[in-house]
Every structure is written in C-alpha cells, then in structure tokens.
C-alpha cells in the first residue's frame, strides 16, 4: 500500500536506532580522521592502526580462525543435516539436542573448558591413557584448537537447522528420479544436493562469519585480556584499546571493520534480492 502511514509505525523505533547507533557512528567516522584533541589528521589514525603490531597479530589470528572454523563447521553440519533428512523423529530429537548450546551461557562453560583442557585436565588424562603426551592447551597454540572446538560446539545446531531448511527446499522428486536412474546415495548427494545448496551455503557462510566474532566471550572468560598469542583476536584488541581510551585508534579500527562487514552484508543482500 502506498502510504506515508508506514512512517508513523517506524518512527519511534527509528528514532532510537538513530540516537543509539547511527548518529554516534557518524561521530566515530568523523573522529577517525581527527586526533584525540580534535585536530584533523587525515588518514594518520588509519596508518597508525595498520602499522600497529598488535593489530596485525589480531587481524591475522581472526582471519586464521575464520579460515579454519568455517569449512569445519559447514562441512560437519552439512553432513549431519544430510543424515537427518528423512529421519523424522530422530531428526527432531537430534536438532533439539544440538541447539542446546545456544541456551548455555558462555560463562557457564568456560569453567568446564578450564577443567577439561588444563595441562592436568580431563582431556589430557584421556590422552595419556591412550599413550599420547599431554598438551598444555591454554599456554600453547593448543589454545587455538580449544577455541575452534568451542565455536563448533556452540554453532553446530544452528548451522544444522539452516542447512536442513535449505535441504528441505530441494524437491524430493529429483532424488526419486535419480534413484530410478540407478544413482547411489553418494552420487545423488554430489550431483543434486550440493549444486542446489549454493544459495543456502552462501547465507550460512556470512552468518557463521559474523557469529565467529562471538567466540570472544569464551576466549576472554577463559584467558583474560592478554591470552595466549594464537587466540589474541581483534575483539581483544578493541577491548584493550577501549580500556586505555585510545579513541583515535579505536575509531579508525571500528570504521575498517565496519567496511569489511559492509561488503559481506552487501553481497548477501544482493543474493537475497536475486532470489525473486
């Protein structure tokens, strides 16, 4: 319906969004070009951020984390979702179980991660029982794998539900036709399921990428402000700059991160539009 009445519905909410998000963010963009004392300094803050060693480390680790986690999570959850297809009640039960981590506060599990992955922890007990050497996860690069595990644990159910939605959109008849033609299950998976899931996969990649920023909770609660080097992420850096009130660097870094995410969201949005 063509009507300006819609604006009335939006206005109260939009005002809040403007006050708490949009206007202050414009302020941050302006600040990213100024020194702390307010003097205009061009791209100096950006240069400072780019040349910052901690930023390089944090950005590198964040990219590393995403590159390792996404394929693992997407692969595992796709296999699980494919197995759950046509499984009726089993599927319902499994999906519910896998979703439970969504309800578990990060603060509640870090205690367990500490007990399990400590150098004298439960996982190491299992390792030594099996004849392997124990690993001091939290103080070596093993910290990274703990974080990967934690991310997959948290997001598996969510991603399985997303894949399942994509899978259920593929018409059953295509499979039946393939089976009649003598295609095996694996063959059907490769030639029917995979190509039909491109759109779904794309959405899941973007959502999982954005969710990956939330592992900071676990990383921070397990290891504090300055964790083992391999899990020092952009989120730690932002947090530390925030505590030091390094507004200039923070503003520039926030704008940079914003731009990266903007590109992701734009591509996602475009692909949604293409659907019709």
């Amino acid at each position: 319906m063509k009507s300006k009445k819609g604006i009335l519905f939006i206005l109260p909410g939009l005002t809040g969004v403007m006050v708490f998000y949009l206007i202050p963010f414009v302020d941050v963009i302006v600040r990213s070009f100024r020194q702390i004392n307010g003097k205009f300094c061009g791209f100096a803050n950006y240069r400072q951020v780019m040349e910052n060693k901690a930023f390089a480390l944090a950005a590198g680790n964040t990219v590393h984390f995403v590159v390792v986690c996404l394929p693992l999570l997407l692969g595992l959850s796709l296999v699980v979702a494919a197995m759950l297809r046509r499984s009726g009640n089993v599927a319902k039960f499994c999906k519910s179980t896998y979703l439970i981590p969504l309800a578990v506060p990060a603060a509640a599990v870090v205690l367990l991660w500490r007990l399990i992955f400590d150098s004298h922890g439960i996982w190491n007990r299992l390792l030594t029982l099996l004849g392997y050497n124990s690993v001091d996860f939290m103080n070596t690069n093993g910290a990274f794998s703990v974080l990967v595990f934690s991310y997959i644990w948290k997001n598996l159910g969510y991603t399985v539900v997303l894949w399942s939605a994509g899978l259920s959109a593929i018409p059953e008849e295509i499979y039946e036709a393939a089976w009649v033609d003598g295609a095996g299950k694996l063959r059907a998976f490769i030639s029917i399921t995979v190509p039909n899931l491109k759109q779904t996969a794309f959405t899941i990649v973007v959502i999982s990428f954005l969710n990956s920023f939330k592992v900071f909770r676990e990383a921070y609660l397990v290891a504090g402000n300055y964790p083992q080097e391999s899990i020092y992420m952009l989120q730690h850096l932002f947090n530390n700059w925030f505590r030091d009130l390094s507004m200039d660097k923070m503003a520039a870094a926030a704008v940079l991160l914003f731009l990266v995410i903007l590109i992701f969201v734009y591509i996602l949005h475009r692909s949604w539009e293409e659907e019709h």
Partner: protein
Amino acid sequence: MKSIVYTGKIIKAVLLGLCAIITISPLLFLLSGSFMDQLEISKLIGPVTKGTEGMADWHWIPHYPTMQNMIELLLDSPEFYQMFWNSVKITVIILVGQLIFGMPSAWGLARYEFPGKKQIYFIYIILMMLPFQVTMLSEYLVLDKIKLLDSHGAIILPGIFSTFSVFLMYRFFAAIPQEVLEAARMDGANEWQIFCRIGVPLGYAGIVSAMVLQFLECWNQIERPMAFLKTKGLWPLSLYLPEISMEKAGFAMCAALMALLPALFVFLYGQDYLEQGITATMKEKR
C-alpha cells in the same frame, strides 16, 4: 550390498550420537558437579584447581550426593540473588521495549511503501550484522553524553533498539497475504486496528521466535555489560559466574546451572519457534 547399507547406518548413528553427546555433556557435567561435596570434587579435579599430583578425573553420578552447594547458593549468597534479578530486569525490559518499538517498526517496513524504505531496511540489516566491537565506541560516546554509563540504562536502551528482532518480525509480517489486509480495510478498519487485530495474531510465530532468540541473547550477554558497567552490584549473572574461584568448583557449577535454567526453560518452551526463527534468517518470504 546389504552389509554396505548396514555399515552406513552404523557410521550415521555413531556420528549423530557423538555430536549429541558432545553438545549435551557440558550440561550433565554441571548437573553432576552441582551435587558433589567439596571433598569429592576436589579429589576429582584437584590436579587442576590445587595442583595436586596426577590428572583430573570425573564421574557422572556423585558418590555422595549433597545439597550443600544448592543451599549455600540459595540461602547464603546475596550477590547471586542481586545479579540474578539484575539479569531478569535487564532482559525483561529489553524484550518489552522491543515489542513496543521493534514490532511496529517491523510492521511498517513490511507492509507499507514510503520513500527511503529500502535504505532503512538495508541499514537495519547492517546494524543487525555488526559485532559489538564495531559499535562499542559509538555506544560509549552516546551513553557518556546522556550520562547513562554505569547504569542499567546503558545495557537496556541499546538493547531495545537492536534491529535483529525487527528483521525477524519483518520476515513473518511480510508473509501475510495482502488480501487479508485489504478485506479488513474494506470493512473500515483503520491502519492501527489492522496492525493489532491482524498483523500481530498472524505474525505471532515471528514475534515469539524473535523474543526467544533475543531472550537467549540478552540473558547471556557479556560484552556490553563488561564494557559499560563498572559497579559490581549492577552486573548481570553472566559476569558474576567467572568471578567464582575454581577452588569452589562445586559451588561454581551449581551457580552456572541455576544461571542457565531460565534460558533452558525458554529454550524448551520456544523450541519450535526457535527453529522457525533461525530458518527465517535464510530466505526472504514474500
């Protein structure tokens, strides 16, 4: 051929079962630990918490079950209550606020055409996708200006205007057939009545799923309270848990268990909606 099918089934069962065990075991862990007494639990995990010889161990059923932790938590920990109610207050006000501000926004975006609508929608999507780290500084600046830092308002107000729930409800509102609204208009209903009597009931699933997802999000939030709340008495439960020392592991597990119970109840109640909500982020329904 038959044996191949059989092995396939076994692999499938093992993988699915393994995933189920891994996702659910932390819950069982907390449950069993909550009912162990200090002696039993320190014997098991002493190597981690006290540096005693050997490696930590665990068993799933306490040998000497006790209510000691539960009693200490419920009768003897005023901080726990205070932070529990802080969490309840923050979460409830945010959810109610989202119904008051977010729900009409979603309706307006979904059912009306007006200049700038596409741009607003795109901005909402971006905002919903931004991690807290990007908006932390801007939120800080505005909260500082209106003198809300270190108060619950600093957590509640930005929470109310989170665009995620708007987006979710939008998806469900947009799926309501236009004819239904036209029929109501013919009968002389005004726009507000259409929203209340048709939009809300028909978009109910979307509203509930947004509320369920947002409840879990608010109840478990850490970053924002950590950044904006200095006074310990204002903290939500999610910040209190890590403060309990490992020495009192049984007590800590008990507190963790109590903290996740409300989230678990909401989760169990809203499970179907939760799934619908997650799925709705996938595709545009028109």
